[in-house]
């Protein structure tokens, strides 16, 4: 057999390599294996890493482990776990840590999602697809990249399954496509439930469109309609339990309100806007207009790529009609969804100058766009890739977490005094023990208490503290009865988790020796010395950044009211 590589395959290989190089490659300094979590810039990012790690340890996600649920043992695992299971799979088989594999899965599958969308566009027009594909590189820069490093990776992975849904709709006439549709929808809901609303909306739109064509234009669409119907049946069969859980928890806690308008993505550094795309917005506008015309012209067999482009553009503005900040998450992947308009806009212009060799020219333009978007050659007003800073847990802190995980009893309670790193408090779940924190940066009350005492120069036995866990997403849901779910966080009152706490009842204490505000670290060490004076404390671990004390008599007085 002779091997003759097709130019299209080579083009896809180049784009795949470029996206991998500029996406995860640059973020990770072109290494794959790390000693500590690398590329994590927010607490949410650690939330996913630690939950995946917990499932790997426990073996299932029937309930949340106590260290993620403030010591509660009956909290149901309701966070969509699709991405976690995939990263665990790769960790077991590939031998890397979950904090690495969760990113490998998210980045590699995002690239595969971009390539799959290329194939959706290719069904519409090969040249347009070639021009469109390089635009995908922009998911790894600017605000879109925030989606990866700030903890929106389950949403991004769910969008990969959403792209699979779009792809199968584009191939709905093939036998057994309804099974793939059912799996794609189930995988979406099990990875990030809110994307199911988008996927279901797209399927519903396609269904209604075909229904109208069937009855108004008298084109036979029975096969398409039947398959979508069966696909939805397969989806319900595969994921009824998770749909039920989501309905009883997320849908109840966060009902969609069509009059809810969001203009900012709270806590996140900005939102993706169309204006981010600079001069190429012009080509996208041309593509959009050409798309409307072509869509209408082919209304009896509407191009799925165009339908998806229109739909995802409108969904991206869902922040104005009830989709709240979820709409901003969809925008992270606009460089994929809207690439069809860029491709079509350029192709439209290209056809006027090189009609006969448009396909060959599309290859060349595809490569030029890849170079331009990657920032290798910077062109004014053309958006391009820019390297993003990489957050990481430093090795000494990681050693502290590992020491606690490996050397303390499973039921030990750990107390964290002030540490700069602990602002992203989900990182503390890496110790896999129930833990408190003296200063919850998300809670002004505890901040005030800590700073007041520091300013007054006093050390007390009680400090306002946070009993940490993933409290505020699903509010610690538990089975209250058959088909009934209660919420510990709502029922127990918030003050059960944020309150003045006797610090002497803990088993282990972590004190950071340095801080951005030196006074915080000095205060830490004064408290540590005071505890050591009590006689029943010992230093069990120490490194250049932290010290861990063990309390041999939890509950006994460990500190008197004193002046620092």
């Amino acid at each position, binding site marked *: 057999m002779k091997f003759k590589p097709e130019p299209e395959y080579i083009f896809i290989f180049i784009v*795949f390599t470029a996206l991998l190089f500029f996406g995860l490659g640059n973020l990770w300094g072109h290494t794959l294996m790390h000693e500590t979590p690398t590329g994590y810039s927010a607490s949410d990012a650690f939330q996913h890493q630690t939950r995946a790690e917990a499932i790997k340890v426990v073996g299932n*996600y029937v309930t949340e482990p106590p260290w993620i649920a403030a010591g509660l043992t009956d909290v149901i695992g309701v966070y969509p776990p*699709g991405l976690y*299971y995939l990263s*665990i*799979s790769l960790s077991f088989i*590939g031998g890397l840590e979950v904090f690495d594999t969760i990113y490998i899965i998210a980045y590699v599958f995002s690239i595969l999602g971009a390539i799959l969308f290329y194939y959706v566009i290719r069904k519409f027009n090969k040249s347009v697809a070639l021009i469109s594909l390089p635009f995908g590189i922009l998911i790894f820069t600017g605000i879109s990249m925030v989606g990866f490093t700030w903890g929106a990776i389950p949403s991004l992975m769910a969008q990969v*399954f959403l792209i699979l849904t779009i792809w199968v709709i584009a191939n709905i006439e093939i036998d057994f496509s309804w099974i793939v549709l059912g799996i*794609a929808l189930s995988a979406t809901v099990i990875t990030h439930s809110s994307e199911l609303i988008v996927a279901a909306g797209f399927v519903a739109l396609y269904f209604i469109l075909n229904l109208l064509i069937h009855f108004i234009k008298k084109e036979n669409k029975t096969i398409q309609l039947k398959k979508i119907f069966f696909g939805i049946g397969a989806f319900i069969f595969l994921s009824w*339990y998770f749909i039920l859980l989501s309905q009883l928890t997320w849908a109840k806690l966060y009902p969609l309100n069509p009059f809810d308008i969001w203009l900012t993505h709270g806590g996140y550094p900005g939102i993706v806007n169309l204006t981010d795309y600079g001069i190429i917005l012009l080509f996208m506008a041309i593509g959009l207009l050409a798309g409307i015309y072509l869509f209408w012209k082919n209304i009896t067999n509407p191009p799925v790529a165009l339908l998806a482009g229109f739909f995802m553009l409108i969904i991206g503005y869902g922040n104005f009609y009830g989709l709240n900040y979820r709409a901003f998450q969809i925008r992270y992947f606009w460089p994929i969804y809207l690439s069809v308009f860029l491709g079509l806009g350029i192709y439209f212009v290209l056809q006027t100058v090189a009609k006969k060799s448009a396909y060959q020219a599309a290859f060349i333009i595809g490569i030029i766009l890849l170079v331009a978007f990657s920032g290798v050659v910077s062109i004014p007003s053309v958006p391009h890739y820019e390297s993003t800073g990489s957050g990481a847990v430093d090795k000494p802190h990681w050693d502290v977490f590992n020491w606690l995980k490996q050397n303390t009893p499973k039921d030990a309670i750990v107390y964290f005094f002030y540490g700069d790193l602990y602002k992203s408090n989900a990182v503390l779940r890496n110790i896999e023990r129930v833990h408190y924190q003296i200063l919850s940066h998300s809670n002004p009350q505890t901040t005030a208490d800590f700073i007041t005492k520091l300013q007054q120069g006093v050390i007390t036995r009680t400090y306002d503290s946070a009993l940490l866990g993933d409290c505020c997403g699903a509010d610690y849901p538990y089975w209250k009865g058959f088909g009934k779910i209660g919420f510990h966080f709502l029922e127990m009152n918030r003050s059960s988790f944020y309150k003045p706490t006797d610090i002497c009842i803990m088993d282990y204490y972590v004190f950071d020796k340095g801080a951005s505000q030196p006074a915080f670290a000095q205060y830490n060490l004064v408290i540590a010395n005071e505890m050591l004076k009590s006689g029943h404390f010992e230093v069990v671990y120490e490194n250049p950044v932290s010290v861990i004390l063990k309390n041999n008599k939890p509950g006994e007085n460990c500190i008197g009211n004193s002046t620092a």
Partner: protein
Amino acid sequence: MRIALETAQLKQEAVKLGLLFVAALAAFQIAFFKESPLVVLRIVAAIFFLFVLPGWCVLYIWREKIGLLERVVAGAILFAGITAILAYFSSFIGIHVKYAVWIVPLLAYAAFIIQLFTSSVHGKNRKH
């Protein structure tokens, strides 16, 4: 005649999958050029074992409708979905995730081999 054609196609696709594996290795090694080739090999092999090959097996029935690379890409994403669903739900019947990650792709391989074997033994044309 039909069986011979299918065997030839299977062999051809297997060779192309091998080339795809080499291409994926090259892409990963370029993107992570500071990493040891052994680590890169391990990860690429794991991705192929877990998602790419089982996905290809599952979508092999669409070989006459859809090209190889498109099937491989869609198949990998599809099988990631299957893995997520099965690994999650198998934990409710007590299967630890460390076993599920092996069982799920192996099931796809087994089903594919059985299907190939039965169709060649009975000389059936697979309907798709």
